[in-house]
């Protein structure tokens, strides 16, 4: 397994299908937080965290039990963020963590800006939480689980799903294992 430390600089060597452990700091944002971040960018206002070289994790965790940094914290479906991703890539966002495929326009922008999309295993939320060591809400606490969290992670387990050249594990994997006897997908 490869390891990466944030902030990310060059992600060109990562290839779709690589299993990676991430160390350092990642930030969380889901639908509601994305809408606010994109609005700030449009208004030319400062963002609540340094986006250059950062990784955003699409997650809405369960509440932490006393003494724990966080509850269960697996990825949510990334495609919901696709309409709100490009402004962040333009600000220097280098990595995104979620689950499921991305739209062609996001993949094109990832190629243009040299960014990578990681998948975490959806539904493995208790396991993933074990690699999250510190958590702090840094923006929009009123959004609850959807607030922006700063997370310190150790060996956070992800798979490169779409690399900075646009190689797409979701397409490659399905093409490899799809039975040729099956009609083409509509």
């Amino acid at each position, binding site marked *: 397994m490869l390891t990466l430390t944030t902030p990310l600089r060059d992600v060109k060597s990562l290839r779709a*299908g690589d*299993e990676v452990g991430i160390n350092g700091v990642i930030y969380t944002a889901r639908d509601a937080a994305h809408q606010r971040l994109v609005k700030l960018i449009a208004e030319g206002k400062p963002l609540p965290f340094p986006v250059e070289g950062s990784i955003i994790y699409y*997650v*809405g*965790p*369960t*509440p*932490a*039990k006393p003494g724990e940094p966080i*509850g*269960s*914290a*697996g990825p*949510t*479906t990334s*495609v919901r963020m696709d309409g709100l991703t490009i402004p962040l890539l333009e600000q220097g966002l280098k990595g995104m963590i979620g*689950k*499921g*495929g991305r739209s062609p326009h996001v993949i094109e922008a990832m190629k243009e800006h040299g960014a990578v999309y990681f*998948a975490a*295993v*959806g*539904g*493995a*939320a*208790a*396991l*993933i*939480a*074990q690699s999250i060591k510190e958590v702090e809400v840094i923006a929009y606490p009123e959004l*609850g*689980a959807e607030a922006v969290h700063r997370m310190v992670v150790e060996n956070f*387990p992800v*798979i490169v*799903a779409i690399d900075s050249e646009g190689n797409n*594990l*979701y397409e*490659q*994997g*399905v*093409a*490899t*294992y*799809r*039975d040729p*006897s*099956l*009609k083409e*997908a*509509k």
Partner: protein
Amino acid sequence: MRVIKYDDIVARTKALCLDANRHLPADVFGALKRAQEQEVSPLGKNVLDTILENAEIARTKSMALCQDTGMVVVFAEVGQDARIEGGLLTDAIDEGVRQAYDEGYLRKSVVGDPLERVNTGDNTPAVVHVSLVAGDQLRLTVAPKGFGSENMSALRMLKPAEGVQGVKDFIVETVTKAGGNPCPPIIIGVGIGGTFEKAALMAKRSVLREIGSKHPKPHLAQLEEELLELVNKTGVGPQGFGGTQTALAVFVDTYPTHIAGLPVAVNINCHVARHVEAIL
């Protein structure tokens, strides 16, 4: 007439919500183990190992299996010789949900108005399906539903002439389009016939069946087998990374329908297929 107390329904619903969110049903765990053994893709095998390990961690640490602890769906079968005393059944269920999601550190994922989208703060209301049955007992089935998979579900009103082939094509298309979004390996519930809403409800309910159980009608048991084989040929695989283990089971339910219609509903459940039941 047998009396079932409001407070007992609250307590039982709470216990069922906590249990469902922390413990993977034994049949699902077993099916995931078999899928891990049978998966051809090395990455798919690793993913299934991770999923199995997650279930162990959730169980031993009393954590939610998935951070999406769902909107709570409850099937309440009320014996018509029983009387519920102390308040409304749906209020009792909502109170049980409220207590479980607060005290159990579960995520509150429900917004009160679908357009205004303000979180209700306690994961209520539940979606409650009540049916009257014979006897004097109350059977509660609690099935928290995550929306990664719910969003990938679909319903189509087929033409009768499209027949069983149309049904198969629609299911394969739905699973293929869904890709990795619903967290495969999935469990697929299919409702065929009835009306628009009847088909959806049958699909939702059929995912509760035990994995490995056969449909009592031979032609539907055979259809379930064929559908499982077909969807596992799509190549979607664990998490959509490619593989042979796209679904753990396909369950079909049917109902008589109109001469002019062939409604088909496909409800997709993720691998965290949570459902528990109790009888009061």
